[in-house]
């Protein structure tokens, strides 16, 4: 029974948007599969890793049969990707096998029953909802997500803290050495609630959300969050844990401020980074009247020195940082200028963008 007949991209594009979360090796074989559900002219695709579930839809697809089946997501994606763009694809469900046909190419894939596919239960009970544009949310998380921990034993750091509070939506990521904060205004007025999105959910949203003004509907439950945008719905579990109090570590009163051209600073920093010690990645930053010096040295006694012009009239300064933490923020910030504020060489530095009080990045120094 032919359940689908369409141009390659009508199937490949939605497949690629759900298959990012599919784990290659998983405890349950069916989790390597994508669920294809064809009804009338609409094809629904679902993938899950139990923690996250992504559903998307392709409309106006051909093929007169209806049906539902699960098939290996990565294999189907690899096949479709290696066929020519213009190929017309037929999916033919035949006796527990899915035949993928295009021109003279034939692929017979094994399937698992659609009924066995685990679907995430949508949590009942109280929920909050809000809408923002895809671009806004992408900007919000894009400016912070790089500061998330990756495999920390403090599991609640391996994610992004999202907070609704009145008319504000805030997000915070930290790995214990640096912290990124960003916020935006929303059109709702909601009671304060904190939630921690798993790292994988954040990376996936960052990948899937468009740079456009289309709406993104967010629904927050007690242990689940739902993002609906375009034809796609992403449901994710929340990390159960207490995120550290970010307000305590964002310094309020700082004595010295430096303003520099972001690009210039980033380029100089990237060059110096080449000769940092692989393990510590430390750079020495020296500030004096309107001059910033970056010095890096590695275990082989090789040395890099950079000097750039900045706006600074504070006390002379000599401090070390992990260059990765600095490159991360300069790389992810837009805008022409960055402001760097600090008290002394032993306490945290605050990096902000002049004229933007919504973004804050706090980084601890490193002993060189």
């Amino acid at each position: 029974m032919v359940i689908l007949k369409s141009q390659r991209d009508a199937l490949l594009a939605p497949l690629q948007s759900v298959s990012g979360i599919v784990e290659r090796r998983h405890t349950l074989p069916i989790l390597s599969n994508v669920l294809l559900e064809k009804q009338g002219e609409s094809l629904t695709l679902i993938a899950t890793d139990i923690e996250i579930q992504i559903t998307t839809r392709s409309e106006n697809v051909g093929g007169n049969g209806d049906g539902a089946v699960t098939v290996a997501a990565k294999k189907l994606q690899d096949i479709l990707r290696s066929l020519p763009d213009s190929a017309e694809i037929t999916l033919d469900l035949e006796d527990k096998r899915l035949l993928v046909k295009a021109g003279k190419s034939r692929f017979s894939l094994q399937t698992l029953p659609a009924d066995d596919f685990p679907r995430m239960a949508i949590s009942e009970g109280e929920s909050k909802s809000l809408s923002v544009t895809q671009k806004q949310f992408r900007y919000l998380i894009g400016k912070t997500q790089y500061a998330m921990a990756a495999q920390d034993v403090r599991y609640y750091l391996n994610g992004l803290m999202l907070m609704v509070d009145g008319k504000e939506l805030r997000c915070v990521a930290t790995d214990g050495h640096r912290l990124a904060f960003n916020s935006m205004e929303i059109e709702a007025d909601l009671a304060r609630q904190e939630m921690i999105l798993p790292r994988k959910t954040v990376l996936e949203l960052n990948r899937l959300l468009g740079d456009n003004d289309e709406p993104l509907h967010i629904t927050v439950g007690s242990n689940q969050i739902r993002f609906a945008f375009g034809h796609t719905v992403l449901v994710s579990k929340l990390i159960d844990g207490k995120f550290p109090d970010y307000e305590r570590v964002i310094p309020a009163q700082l004595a010295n401020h430096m303003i520099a051209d972001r690009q210039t600073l980033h380029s100089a920093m990237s060059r110096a980074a080449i000769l940092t010690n692989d393990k510590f990645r430390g750079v020495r930053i020296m500030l004096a009247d309107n001059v910033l010096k970056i010095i890096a040295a590695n275990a082989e006694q090789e040395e890099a020195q950079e000097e750039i012009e900045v706006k600074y009239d504070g006390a002379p300064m000599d401090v070390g940082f992990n260059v990765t933490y600095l490159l991360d923020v300069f790389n992810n910030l837009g805008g022409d200028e960055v402001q760097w504020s600090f008290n002394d060489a032993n306490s945290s530095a605050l990096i902000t963008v002049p004229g933007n009080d919504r973004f804050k990045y706090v980084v601890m120094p490193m002993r060189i």
Partner: protein
Amino acid sequence: MNSNRRIAHLDMDAFFASVELRFYPELQGQAVVVGGARVHAPETLADGSRRFARLRDYAGRGVVTTSTYEARALGVFSGMGLMKSAQLAPEAILLPAQFEAYRDYSRRFKAAVAAIAPTIEDRGIDEIYLDLTDHPEPTLPLVQRLKGAVLEATGLSCSVGVAPNKLLAKICSDLDKPDGITLLEAADIPTRIWPLAPRKINGIGPKAAARLERLGIDSIGALAATPEDFLVRHFGAGTGAWLHRAAHGVDHSPVVTSREPKSISRETTFERDLHVRQDRPELSRQFTALCERVAADLARKGYLSRTIGIKLRYEDFQAVTRDVTLPVAVGDAAAIRRAAGECLKRVPLERKIRLLGVRCGALVPQGQESEETEERQGKLPF
């Protein structure tokens, strides 16, 4: 390297079983099998005599921890299932393992040896290597004195091999068991080592032996006669060259008197196979208990671990391992449990599980863990 080394390998004879016989001397000369710690202990009767469990009465899934030479003569060896060994030796006496007692006897024999020859490499509970090169006494009387000291301290016999290196010494201690002394010089290799099966070389296990057999190599002599490049082709550069050296009795490895452990692990075979879903509470309890025991081992030995791994053996005996490396070394049971739990998510869990193990590798001595990156990089003052 000194080419005239005198290296001894001292191996306790049927160690666990012999310790048991110290407790139950009436069993001397009988086929005795030591099972797991859960096997029934002997009952002391009213008249002071003891009633022992017999192998034929055993029902369960324990394995033989060790057996006396009498039981070995009936085909019962360590690692064999107790039910299976009951078919071979139904009348054999079955005793529970008393690991604390074995450790005690182990400490005693090592202390007795150390008083005479202090250059000792500890190879486990019942065997040690000794470097006797610089010892003033001639070999034979010295070895006799060592054996005497071990006997006096523990009442147990041991077998000793003395050779120019550890590889040969280990082979030799096994040549005249029990209560033997084997002295070997390099010139004796063709007559005494080459006729032996390749498996006698410590490091050639059943798999490598089977591969050698398929290549027509069924003795150490045949291995020695095989060109090195042939071995390198079949076993790779490292192993091929090592096989060649080993067959010629060449081994330069020193006697290592103190060593840092590479990993610390604990494992358990369940009373019955457990399924992740149906037996979740039981499995979870056992899993947590394993993590707690490993954490206690780590604490006792003063280490933290950065690589936490798990080992599973399924009901069909297939085994899998997974591990995860953490950004910081950990030592507490909860952190180990969490990391091990992550590993468990990465293995197939449809089949029932027979054995579960938790392993802590990449050990860092406690107190040194934060010295490097951790301490240089400032932490946010949350």
